[in-house]
């Protein structure tokens, strides 16, 4: 069979991925150099010592703060958010009325299509101590207004709860698709044996979902240190930086705003390496324990 046409079709994709994904990987060497724009990536001299920028980061007072903030933000997000789509999917799957099921699905998918910018904007408005919806409700019940985004201790709850609102519905898709593949005869047999709905969920649906759950958990755990930059950055105020300063916002600050190219790249590379180590470790463990692997 003649394959050249298929290779031809792949050329544009190959060029784009190569230029915009692999060339920057080559550019990562500036983490070990003192990058000067006039000399370019190749021409800039190697740092002395080679790990200068990494040492600067490890020794800065920001280091432990950033690592802890990044870890806590994503760890708490994982713990609180991960189970919810599974539960919602199991519930939706049990709805006998298809029309109601479709309606709920359409509505809970909606927040996923709202931009991070709009979500952050809504949070700024809703959480405002002056006439924000959330504080209006708190006042209605006799409570005092809270300046949520002006207080570091509220940053993570706001980030996590808004994330649950935005992504839980979308997260059900993969589980619902898996559930729709469950053999009907299993339900029928269980019903004949006198199993009620809760028992059918526990003994049929949950085991059917388990491989998907494990794979998604590995992927999420492997991404533990790669918190998205956008939302944290947009919810950041001068007053909540104690919790909202994470590695990703620091990379942006140092790199784009302060043009410390080499230093910012070193911090980013440190983060990427941690991610890969985490992912490989978690995958290795699950391979040994549960015989499930990404690769």
């Amino acid at each position, binding site marked *: 069979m003649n394959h050249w046409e298929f290779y031809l079709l792949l050329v544009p994709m190959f060029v784009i991925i190569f230029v915009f994904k692999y060339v*920057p990987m080559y550019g990562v060497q500036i983490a070990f150099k003192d990058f000067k724009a006039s000399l370019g990536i190749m021409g800039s001299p190697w740092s002395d010592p080679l790990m200068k920028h990494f040492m600067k980061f490890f020794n800065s007072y920001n280091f432990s703060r950033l690592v802890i903030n990044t870890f806590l933000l994503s760890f708490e997000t994982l713990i609180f958010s991960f189970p919810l789509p599974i539960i919602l999917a199991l*519930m939706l799957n049990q709805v006998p009325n298809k029309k109601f099921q479709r309606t709920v699905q359409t509505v809970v998918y909606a927040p996923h299509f709202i931009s991070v*910018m709009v979500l952050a904007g809504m949070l700024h*408005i809703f959480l405002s101590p002056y006439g924000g919806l959330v504080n209006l409700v708190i006042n209605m019940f006799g409570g005092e207004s809270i300046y949520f985004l002006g207080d570091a201790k509220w940053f993570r709850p706001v980030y996590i709860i808004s994330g649950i609102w935005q992504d839980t519905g979308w997260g059900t898709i993969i589980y619902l*698709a898996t559930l729709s593949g469950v053999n009907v005869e299993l339900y029928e047999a269980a019903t004949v044996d006198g199993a009620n709905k809760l028992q059918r969920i526990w003994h049929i649906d949950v085991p059917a979902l388990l491989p998907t759950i494990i794979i998604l958990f590995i992927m999420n755990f492997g991404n533990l240190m790669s918190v998205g930059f956008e939302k944290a950055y947009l919810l950041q105020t001068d007053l909540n930086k104690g919790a909202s300063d994470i590695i990703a916002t620091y990379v942006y600050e140092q790199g784009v705003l302060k043009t410390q190219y080499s230093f910012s790249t070193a911090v980013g590379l440190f983060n990427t390496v941690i991610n890969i180590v985490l992912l490989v470790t978690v995958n290795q463990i699950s391979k040994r324990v549960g015989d499930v692997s990404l690769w």
Partner: protein
Amino acid sequence: MEAKKLAAKAKVKPISASDKAFDIANYVLLAFVLFITAYPLYYVLIASVSDPFKVYAGQTMIRPVGFSWGGYERIFQDPMITRGYLNSIVYTTLGSFVSVVLTCVSGYALSKKTLPGRRWIMLFLLFTMYFNGGLIPTYLTVRDVGMFNTIWALIIPNAISVYNLIIARTFFESNIAESLTEAASIDGSSNIGTMVRIVMPLSTPIIAVMVVFYAVGLWNNWFDALIYTTKSDMAPLQLVLRSILIKSQASSDMMMGMDANYAEKQKVTEMIKFASIVVASVPMLIIYPFVQKYFSKGIMIGAVKG
């Protein structure tokens, strides 16, 4: 399917008390989820057509008060917002077109199990999901290829999402029979001709899903514009929203405490906040229900298993 059969069964057999209790609890909980999800959106909608002072006094929790289109009128008079809207439409249309064509075409080529080197090409792609050069090296690359301050910086670097590519490939693998394309090539059609005339017309579901995924990503993107463009007349809507929604809110929260007349002065800004959220979100909220039925058919499963 199975739910239908179960429902049919349920009609024959009396439903047990515990199952009935389960159903009721399930409906109540789902109704609660429905409310929690929809109410913030509904609140924004009614606030956008209400008097801002009534909104901040908490009088618009159920229905609009002091009805007016003022916020929307101001939005369409604001040159920054209209410009941003136009920019976003151009970036989204052009970007989706480029991305969908590239993704479907490469996805189809990679669905050919007999293609020599297919495994290596997949590895080449998958590797980029786990390792990347990071912010600054990517920024330098985009600058070095001369895309800085051009529309291409917002379209080409992220034109191909590996995740979407795998979804497309999985679709072609499981929905386009080898025998079909082989028959076409025996009839003298070239591979590319077969793809254009036979495969793609059979693949409208995946094309529709790809259009929605890419369009949403492009429409909602602001970060690329923030770092790759410096001209204010290139700003997409989402970036214009940043100054309306985020910067002004953070400063007004602080100013309110100090200046008693601040609220009065801010009235115009407040009026357009809610309306701008609606205007920015409605296009994407309208399109996804059209492809929703394909989401649950397992289209996305392939991407998870790589």
